[in-house]
């Protein structure tokens, strides 16, 4: 999780490239004669590259499609469209059998350390699952390997025969890490791996992940909604809003020069340990909830909540591109990006009445978010 000293070229050593990935969940109504009643656009055209050995942070509010994107990458979900190229191989159209060899290279750590471990099975057989499924080790050999893994992630190998219920949340997450690590994958997608843990335990698990990354040259996609955690672990960070990436940058650059108003608002919500500094800071309070992904707003999806919204934002969906004098790897999708030192809290949207009416036209939105529009 250290910043890479030698910056690889943009196309060089890309482990994972996802292009225009979309995942729509159909909404069906009627029990006997099913008919489609629209779809939830959980992920709506995301393109990202993940370089070998780096950690890509993925942040955003609840419901912005982070976890869905993670499940598209690990092919727990079938894509609606788009492609996922892992290590030079397009895995987006592989069937279950063709995916199996890929699965040993792409693993996942889940958010809920209580839900992600089978309560009726012993820890040894849970961690041994990858070996059993891929037939790489059995019997005493498997047990030895599982116990090595347990030791590696800081668990007592003697607890081989215990049930998940006998472990604390942090220990359970270590079990999840051990399971993900068993097949020595190249990429691990961490879906909010520390969100369910105490803060003190969070640090231990994050440090464990960092150690393992160094030791095994792992590549992480690290999903979280806690920005301070993401900053600590990530080389680069992608900010998602309503199924789209709105800003993508090297971690420090993003935190120092946020360009998208949404990033700015997210960052202003990060607690600061220093009370004096905390008081002097303006918090940007976003109004309302994330709009329904069933029928997202026109143009820039953030415009109904954006303090800098203009008429153009309603009509025109901004592309993800470098703003001002930012380096080429710092891109933001915004028509009116935030300049350094600009006071976002003072900004007021300048939308014509017609623009606001546009939002209200949508029957779904006017029902769900009637008070906002």
């Amino acid at each position, binding site marked *: 999780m250290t910043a890479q000293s030698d910056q690889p070229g943009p196309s060089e050593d890309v482990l994972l490239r996802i292009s225009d990935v979309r995942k729509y969940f159909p909404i069906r109504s009627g029990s006997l004669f099913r008919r489609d009643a629209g779809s939830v656009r959980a992920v709506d055209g995301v393109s990202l590259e993940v370089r070998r050995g780096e950690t890509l942070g993925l942040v955003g509010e609840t419901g912005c499609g982070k976890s869905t994107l993670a*499940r598209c990458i*690990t092919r*727990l979900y079938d894509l609606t469209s788009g492609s996922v190229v892992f290590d030079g191989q397009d895995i987006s159209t592989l069937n*279950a059998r063709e*995916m*199996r060899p890929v*699965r*040993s290279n792409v*693993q*996942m750590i*889940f*958010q*809920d350390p209580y*839900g*992600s*471990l*089978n*309560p*009726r*099975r*012993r820890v*040894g*057989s849970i961690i041994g*699952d*990858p070996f059993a*499924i*891929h037939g790489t080790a059995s019997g005493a050999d498997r047990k030895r390997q599982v116990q090595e893994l347990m030791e590696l992630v*800081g*668990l*007592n190998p*003697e*607890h081989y*025969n*215990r*049930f998940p219920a*006998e472990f*604390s949340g*942090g*220990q359970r997450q270590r079990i*999840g890490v051990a*399971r993900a690590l068993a097949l020595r994958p190249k990429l691990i997608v961490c879906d909010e791996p520390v969100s369910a843990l105490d803060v003190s*335990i969070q640090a*231990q698990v994050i440090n464990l992940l960092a150690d393992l990354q160094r030791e095994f040259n792992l590549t992480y996609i690290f999903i979280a909604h806690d920005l301070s955690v993401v900053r600590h672990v990530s080389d680069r960070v992608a900010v998602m809003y309503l199924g789209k990436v709105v800003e993508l940058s090297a971690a420090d650059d993003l935190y120092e020069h946020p360009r998208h108003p949404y990033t700015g608002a997210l960052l202003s919500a990060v607690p600061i340990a220093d009370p004096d500094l905390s008081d002097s800071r303006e918090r940007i309070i976003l109004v309302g909830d994330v709009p329904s992904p069933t029928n997202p707003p026109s143009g820039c999806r953030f415009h109904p909540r954006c303090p800098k919204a203009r008429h153009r934002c309603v009509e025109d969906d901004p592309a993800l591109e470098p703003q001002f004098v930012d380096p080429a790897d710092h891109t933001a999708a915004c028509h009116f990006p935030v300049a350094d030192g600009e006071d976002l809290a003072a900004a007021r949207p300048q939308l014509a009445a017609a623009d606001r009416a546009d939002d209200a036209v949508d029957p779904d939105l006017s029902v769900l978010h009637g008070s906002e529009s």
Partner: protein
Amino acid sequence: MMQPPIETELLSSELPDIEAPHGALPEAVVQGRSPYQLAWLRLRRDRVAMVSAGTIIFVILLALLAPLIAHLTGHGVNEQFHHIGETPDGAPKGPNHIFWLGTDDQGRDLLVRAAYGARVSLLAGLIASAVAVVVGTVVGLSAGYLGRAIDTVLSRIMDIVLSLPYLLFAIALVAIVGPSLKIAIAVIAFFSWASVARIVRGQVLTLREREFVEAARSLGASSRRIMFVDVLPNVLAQIVVLASLLIPSAIVFEATLSFLGLGVPPPTPSWGNMISGSENYYEAWWFLLVPSLLLLITTLAFNLFGDAVRDAFDPRGEMLGNRGKE
């Protein structure tokens, strides 16, 4: 797999285990027990469960030792004692020192016949429930986990089976193929699996959304492996409870069929056809009482034991297996 975890406890204190919540506590307190071990311990403490288990064992012994009883009394199961076993006008004789539980209308020893009848009842009950549980579990797992078209087809089949009038069906079937124990068992199993399948399906529907199933899929596990390795252990407790409650109903089912002449064909004794034979002999109370009482205590013991198993698996006292909601 099943090593005792005692040494484990001693070693864990020596290793630097940051998160161990029991650093200073005496290590012997923590002991790895599976949910099944816990349920067994609770069951052991349940007096009703132990009494009914004793009754069940008694009936099983009765069935197993039926040939021994026949040998000791010297009375064959279908042997008719017209002189000593019947009153001069051909009625059954009450309990006496030769026939401990009396005789039936043909002068046969009721004790020996009841013991052989226990074989039929238990055989039918256990085999039919075993078949029903296995079929029901596999169907329920498939319907619940695989979903979509498979679920629709299997669920409709369950609906059809559950809505069939079983007695009419049994009568019609026997009319075609003739009565036998095999047919009786087949009929019982056929009409019992669907309720098991329905309950298992319901459980699987909630389990398949759990993250550990997703984790197994992300490891590349096949659907079959997920169904039987990951999902099945989580419904096993409910299945055990279901099975223990299915056995008595299968025994009663078999008795009903035999009573109606659709089960075991005479002269082979079964509690059902023994009750049926006693119909015309109201004054011979033992003739009716022996098979009826055995049927009653057997089903009661199985039912109470099933309830106790259910309670043992659920410390919160909630209903497992959704009985009563259906």
